[in-house]
């Protein structure tokens, strides 16, 4: 048991990333005394991420120096229930963050909104295609919160980030050059879209020729001097190409340190403790509420921090892990298909297309930025007719130039050997002649993809590891194939392209692997909804079983959209905080009847 008990605080927040620091900002300003517990260290954009030292591909992109240490916490993984799950001994497929700012310091800054239909996925498909359309093995469901409800919060987060883009649907009016499929916006992006390199421009032209609707990817790589609503000053992006996996010492990539932390750190209601590893959430004797959290402090002392309200902001996977080790909610059991914690884990379905140019094109791939892309959304969500396709969902197709870091950026045409003289020549000749297309696909939830606790392996603190059981559902294999083939057609249509190759990570026969990087878009496991039998939290992000526990992050997604998660999950965070501030805190109780 705990060696020390601290005085009670109003709110304890587990995790100091995008959602945790934002919760602290909003709740501290609403008069709540907030304690943030962050397992990693203090670091700062100004002092920790400056070039040229930060521009070290080996240290940050390949040795993961900014990310979570798997020696302390990791998970076990298997493709299906017949296998024994084994520890993920090294990071690979996804790269969770640790330290001030969480993964928010080393994200790309691709900042999206969900499509309105994404949030009502089950009812939308049933309405449009009939109730038989959705196959029985899919557990997709509605979010319980609509686009119109989230819109002001999605908009606010774009302002916090100084998002750069071009609205395609402003107050219901479609504008050429933007995304015609997006939900209606009440305001344009706060900053103009990024400049595009030649590869992305040629992609856009080809897409247009084929009748699609290319637009600049919305970015949290800021394009001009900008002050956000909290008073943070952001600077224009230098297209430095050390963006994803790196912190941005230029103050140009919106991150939770400069955008949020610096604006709250001196507030009397705010306190953050570093190297504070939360081990579990404690419950009251009747089990109905949480009483606070137990953590290991920087000296290894076990401390109990009592609190009236507990916010879980530890990243999707570790929120679910904390619930499971603390006995919050009911764990999902795939045998009986009952229970909710760990249910509906899903991911992102990725395919890639490489186009190679003749020598009249010089791409200079190192002039890149995390969200430097041109996108078509014509095959995302339900933006296209699915009636004859045999799958649901979709993805965006983007041509991106996000880095030219030479260890990892080695595009070579089909048939090139993996080493030797021919390989060496191909690496040299194609470095400047390549367009990088990604198919960023949705991921449906099923009965068989889920999270629970591992029976064998433990973390550095003696807790059972989280166990992930996941493989690509057939629906997504088909979806990815279909959208990838549309991307191949665009690539073939691009001017000056001499050859094209493609790979679908979810192709028939390819089992999901934790080894190659795909995305850090782990979602689900503690999903939002209106029915306690199929969701862990109600539509306000409040746990059904413990009304003073609020949950943030992508674990809320009932299935994954075709977009990157941070825009949507921050929209949800502001929505939850709004209801905490304006309703719950003055009268703590379940905000919905179970």
């Amino acid at each position, binding site marked *: 048991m705990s060696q020390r008990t601290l005085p009670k605080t109003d709110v304890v927040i587990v995790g100091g990333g995008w959602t945790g620091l934002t919760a602290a900002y909003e709740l501290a300003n609403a008069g709540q005394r907030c304690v943030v517990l962050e397992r990693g260290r203090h670091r700062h954009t100004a002092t920790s991420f400056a*070039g*040229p030292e930060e521009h070290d591909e080996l240290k940050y992109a390949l040795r993961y120096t900014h990310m979570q240490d798997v020696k302390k916490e990791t998970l076990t993984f298997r493709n299906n229930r017949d296998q024994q799950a*084994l520890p*993920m001994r090294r990071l690979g497929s996804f790269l969770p963050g640790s330290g001030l700012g969480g993964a928010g310091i080393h994200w790309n800054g691709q900042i999206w909104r969900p499509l309105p239909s994404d949030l009502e996925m089950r009812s939308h498909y049933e309405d449009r295609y009939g109730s038989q359309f959705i196959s029985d093995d899919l557990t997709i469901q509605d979010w319980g919160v609509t686009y119109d409800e989230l819109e002001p919060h999605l908009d606010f987060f774009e302002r916090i980030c100084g998002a750069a883009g071009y609205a395609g649907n402003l107050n219901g009016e479609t504008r050429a050059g933007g995304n015609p499929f997006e939900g209606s916006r009440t305001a344009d992006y706060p900053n103009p879209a990024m400049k595009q390199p030649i590869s992305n421009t040629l992609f856009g032209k080809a897409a247009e020729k084929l009748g699609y609707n290319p637009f600049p990817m919305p970015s949290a790589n800021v394009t001009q001097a900008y002050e956000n609503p909290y008073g943070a000053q952001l600077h224009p992006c*230098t297209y430095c190409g050390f963006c994803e996996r790196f912190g941005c010492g230029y103050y140009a990539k919106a991150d939770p340190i400069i955008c949020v932390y610096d604006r709250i750190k001196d507030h009397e209601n705010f306190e953050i403790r570093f190297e504070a590893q939360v081990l579990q959430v404690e419950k009251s004797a009747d089990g109905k509420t949480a009483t606070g959290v137990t953590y290991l402090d920087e000296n290894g002392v076990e401390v109990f921090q009592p609190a009236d309200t507990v916010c879980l902001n530890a990243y999707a996977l570790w929120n679910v892990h904390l619930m499971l080790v603390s006995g919050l909610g009911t764990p999902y059991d795939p045998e009986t298909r009952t229970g909710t914690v760990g249910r509906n884990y899903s991911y992102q379905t990725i395919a890639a297309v490489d186009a190679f140019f003749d020598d009249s094109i010089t791409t*200079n791939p190192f002039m890149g930025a995390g969200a430097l892309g041109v996108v078509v959304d014509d095959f995302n969500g339900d933006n296209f007719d699915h009636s004859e396709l045999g799958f649901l969902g979709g993805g965006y197709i983007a041509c991106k130039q996000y880095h030219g870091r*030479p260890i990892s950026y080695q595009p070579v045409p089909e048939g090139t050997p993996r080493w*030797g003289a021919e390989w*060496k020549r191909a690496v040299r000749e194609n470095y400047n002649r390549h367009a990088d297309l990604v198919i960023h696909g949705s991921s449906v939830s099923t009965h068989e993809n889920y999270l629970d606790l591992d029976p064998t392996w433990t973390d550095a603190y003696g807790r059972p590891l989280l166990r992930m059981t996941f493989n690509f559902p057939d629906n997504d294999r088909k979806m990815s194939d279909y959208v990838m083939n549309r991307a191949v057609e665009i690539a073939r249509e691009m001017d000056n392209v001499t050859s094209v190759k493609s790979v679908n990570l979810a192709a028939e026969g390819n089992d999901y692997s*934790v080894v190659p990087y795909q995305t850090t878009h782990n979602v689900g496991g503690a999903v939002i909804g209106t029915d306690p039998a199929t969701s862990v939290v109600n539509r306000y992000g409040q746990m059904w079983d413990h009304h003073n526990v609020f949950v943030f992050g992508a674990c809320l997604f009932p299935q994954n959209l075709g977009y990157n998660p941070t825009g949507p999950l921050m929209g949800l965070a502001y929505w939850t905080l709004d209801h905490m501030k304006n309703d719950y805190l003055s009268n703590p109780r379940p905000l919905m009847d179970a």
Partner: protein
Amino acid sequence: MSQLFSRRAVLMQIGSAVIAGASSVPRHAFADLDSQPWFFLTDDEARWLAAIVDVFIPQDEFPSASQAGVVDFIDFQMATGYGQGEGLYLKGPFPEGTPQQGYQLPMTPAEMMRAGLTELRGETDLTAMPTADRAAWVDDLSNRDNMLGDVPSSTFFEELLSLTNEGYFADPIYRGNADYAGWRMVGFPGAHAYYTERVGDNKPTNQPPMGIAHGQLNQVSPRKIEQGG
């Protein structure tokens, strides 16, 4: 015949184009490592590694892997964090897994390096093999599915290949990529990155590469590796 793969030897052996390229870097004060012992490798291991990494990245207009310091890089990596198991969860038990489950060996990269090198060197003295035959031997190694002691040959092979690639292209502070060999080859300008004005210009970049410690630290040239034959 013994071959010297030092930086000086490289400059003497290869064509004038590269000498012209390389001679634009004399602002480095080159401190030779030759008199210092390896951090991790033995001389014999270093020679064997030089032979195999030069099959992965042979010399052409640009230096080979060992000429660019890849063996020095591997030596340094094995002696420091990565080689010593940083970022690697090493709690047992260690049952065999599927490829999708990733690395499952009960050893650090340095331990794996030693085990693999010991087995393979015991089996084949690559340094004694005529250069022309080495590529075929490496190709064969890549297709094996036997064990090298406790290490599956494919795991060892992939580790060597990726370390070689890293050593050729990582910032020279890690002792590979000597004279920016890898960066010059592809045209990567390095760590000092500011391109706002140039995005979209579709023009070649002629900026010479600059690493993290450019002009500040003594750059280290690769050790000489005597290749017995």
